């Protein structure tokens, strides 16, 4: 598994447990009125799960496992996936912040960041979405 995928999948697992723990506290709060302010974190829970857990996981697994570009196993330049991941993490940070302390410009900022992240990951994956290319190794000339 390449370095980017290790980073992204581990980040996604952390979002799963931290976001899920927030969900757990909300559920306890719903039952016995414990820590009622946790409900400000409801939107943060939803985005940590749907964006933090699922999207980071998808980015990491896609980079790892989509068809390679040549017989050496080249996955394409990694800078686009790092960019996508950086944008996604920034969008999440803004979203989590804004869902706890509502802040109107946050939606515009986070959605722009997320949109750019989507463009970057799509740009990376696009040429890899193809049947496997089996090229002759450079040594064995045709």
């Amino acid at each position, binding site marked *: *598994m390449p370095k980017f*995928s290790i980073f992204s999948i581990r980040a996604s697992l952390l979002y*799963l*447990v931290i976001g899920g723990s927030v*969900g*757990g506290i909300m*559920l306890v709060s719903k*039952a016995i009125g414990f820590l009622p302010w946790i409900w400000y974190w409801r939107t943060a829970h939803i985005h940590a799960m*749907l964006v933090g857990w699922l999207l980071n996981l998808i980015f990491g697994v896609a980079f790892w496992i989509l068809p390679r570009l040549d017989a050496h196993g080249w996955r394409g330049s990694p800078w686009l996936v790092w960019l996508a991941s950086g944008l996604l993490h920034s969008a999440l940070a803004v979203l989590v912040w804004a869902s706890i302390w509502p802040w109107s410009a946050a939606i515009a900022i986070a959605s722009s960041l997320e949109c750019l992240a989507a463009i970057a990951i799509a740009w990376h994956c696009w040429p890899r979405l193809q049947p496997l290319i089996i090229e002759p190794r450079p040594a064995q000339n045709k």
Partner: protein
Amino acid sequence: MPTLARYYIRTAFVWLVLAFAIGIAMLTSQLWALKTNPLAALQIVFYHALMVGWVTQLIVGVAIWLFPVHTREQPRGNEKVAWAAYATFNLGLGLRSIVEPMLQWAPSGLVKWTVVGAACLQVAALWLVLLMLWPRVKAKVSKAK
């Protein structure tokens, strides 16, 4: 496919079917234009059956199957952790799906504390999933010791 992965993935399909059944019941109940629809309490159950029971459980099952192996002797790490995660995951979600709507239908002390128990099981399950998968997110197969 390892037995563990088959349990996770098959149970994920059971949750998919349950989620659709709940969805169908909720949508159909709207035909009667009730003043207060008791099935509205199932919305959160529906979302989590779909996102936790189906999507998350399917992902974990496929990860157990396809992530780089832990070591040659223990390809999936400590399987006890994986089974404990499976049990707490489904027990927690199943219990929650029953008692969370009961907070609206028939609240009682027992229901409240069962919700607390279900929440603890669900959170414990996620930490066990982390414990199980973290060491398998790595570059290569570790050599036998």
